[in-house]
């Protein structure tokens, strides 16, 4: 696999070799080990594990809440990106800097903070509780935690694209009589969509695998509020290594496919 563009630039063999060795030792071999471990299962055994009611429930929950959280971020993130790029207003710099907080904050800290906020006797949960709304220990709470943790992704992928869209385009459309919604639909949306999808997919992939922030607020009820990563932990603690590994393999395949889609999308954008 070598076709160099510029023979003058050295270090191809060295850096590629190092990259491959490092990745192999740290990432591929361990992951391959998991596949080998799972390969002691036949397809039908694998299917039996994956289609057990409890696993299916966790699967639906993890993918469902991650999907909704990613969608929510699609809206909130677009709002943030739009406001940050297009307007100058008091506090803009602060918001811009703080958007990345969920990424920099340890997930366990996010978990206990959100639980303290949304538990039935928490600062916000108290009022919700009076209204008869339960937030913590329900799928709603999980969605909230995932929305928090994946907040930066959509904002950060859309921001640069939005900044690059020439305003003349929108102005031209407006001059030609397009209404704001039409401008959005026909001018902005097509330009933003690939970046938006990338951010969405990133948030979704991360949301499916998220653990630390969720376990504190989830309630962890089998079949109701038990997420996939927690189910892996539970299976491990019951010495069910094979079951844990089967779920792990499934999740890994899903995240690889998602990433591949993101990369294809980005290449499509680059060729655009």
């Amino acid at each position, binding site marked *: 696999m070598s076709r160099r563009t510029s023979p003058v630039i*050295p270090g191809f063999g060295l850096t590629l070799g190092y990259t491959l060795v*490092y990745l192999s030792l740290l990432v591929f071999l361990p992951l391959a*080990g998991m596949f080998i471990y799972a390969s002691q299962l036949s397809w039908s055994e694998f299917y039996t594990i994956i289609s057990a009611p409890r696993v299916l429930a966790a699967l639906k929950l993890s993918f469902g809440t991650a999907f909704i959280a990613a969608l929510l971020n699609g809206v909130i993130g677009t*709002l943030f990106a739009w406001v940050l790029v297009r307007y100058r207003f008091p506090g803009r710099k602060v918001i811009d800097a703080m958007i990345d907080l969920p990424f920099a904050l340890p*997930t366990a800290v996010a978990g206990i*903070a959100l639980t303290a906020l949304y538990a039935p006797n928490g600062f916000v949960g108290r009022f919700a509780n009076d209204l008869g709304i339960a937030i913590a220990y329900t799928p709603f709470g999980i969605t909230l935690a995932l929305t928090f943790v994946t907040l930066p992704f959509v904002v950060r992928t859309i921001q640069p694209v939005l900044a690059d869209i020439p305003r003349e385009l929108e102005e031209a459309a407006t001059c030609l009589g397009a209404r704001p919604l039409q401008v959005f639909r026909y001018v902005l949306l097509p330009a933003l969509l690939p970046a938006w999808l990338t951010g969405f997919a990133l948030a979704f992939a991360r949301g499916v695998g998220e653990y630390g922030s969720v376990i504190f607020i989830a309630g962890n009820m089998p079949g109701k509020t038990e997420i*996939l990563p927690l189910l892996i932990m539970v299976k491990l603690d019951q010495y069910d290594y094979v079951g844990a590994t089967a779920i*792990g393999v499934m999740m890994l395949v899903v995240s690889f496919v998602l*990433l591949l889609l993101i990369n294809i999308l980005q290449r499509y954008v680059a060729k655009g």
Partner: protein
Amino acid sequence: MSTTSTSPQQNSRNAPSWSRLALILSAWAMFIIFLVLPLAIVLIEALKMGVAHFFESMIEPDAISALKLTLLAVAISVPLNLVFGVAAAWCVSKHDFYGKSVLITLIDLPFSVSPIIAGLVYVLLFGAQGFFGEWLIEHDIQIIFAVPGIVLATLFVTVPFVARELIPLMQQQGTQEEEAARLLGASGWQMFWHVTVPNIKWGLMYGVVLCTARAMGEFGAVSVVSGHIRGFTNTLPLHVEILYNEYNHVAAFSVASLLLILALIMLLLKQWSESRINRQLNNGDE
């Protein structure tokens, strides 16, 4: 992005309109609900019993040893991933070869793998029931439930960060400057230190900051391989969980606020290096 706006159209655009005001206000509202509230609650809970108590829980021996272990994990994983990131970015962005996009996807993989899986794979490899388990026991080598396991798990989850930041930056910068240096007779390393490094130093910084933030805060992967031995294999985030489970809420939130402050410092550094990158790119464009 231009900050000075003089053309009449732009002025009219910047004039307050209802939709504009509504969008800004809702952004502020979201900001407060989603970011300020969680942040505030950590500090409020931490300071519930006064400042003295707050500091006491931070200098408690178990907290100190957790801090040391966290710093150790950062100190090992960040430099290793820094070197890896530079190497990976170099071969991906300055050269062309088949299978490049697969390689990029694989570099990204640890980012979207669940941290629990990252822990699980090391248990399957190095646990007593795992592939190398018996061999490790015979040779009296402890990997999981000890510092090496924690470092490995941290390394795994932080692999992509430096590379991810450098690849687009180095692609944007192209290879002309390096080629010029080579043609002027610079050796490979001279070219690297005198041309490439100055060009990417802020990007490097940015990647290192992200990597450090993740390494400090990793919970799931580390939790699987830690063994939770108090004072020995607990990192700061694990220590937060333990305190939280010990009815020691104030201490849990105190240590959490220490992590929060570290995260805020990381954000400041990130913001700073980002602005330097932009400045450098703009200068380069001119």
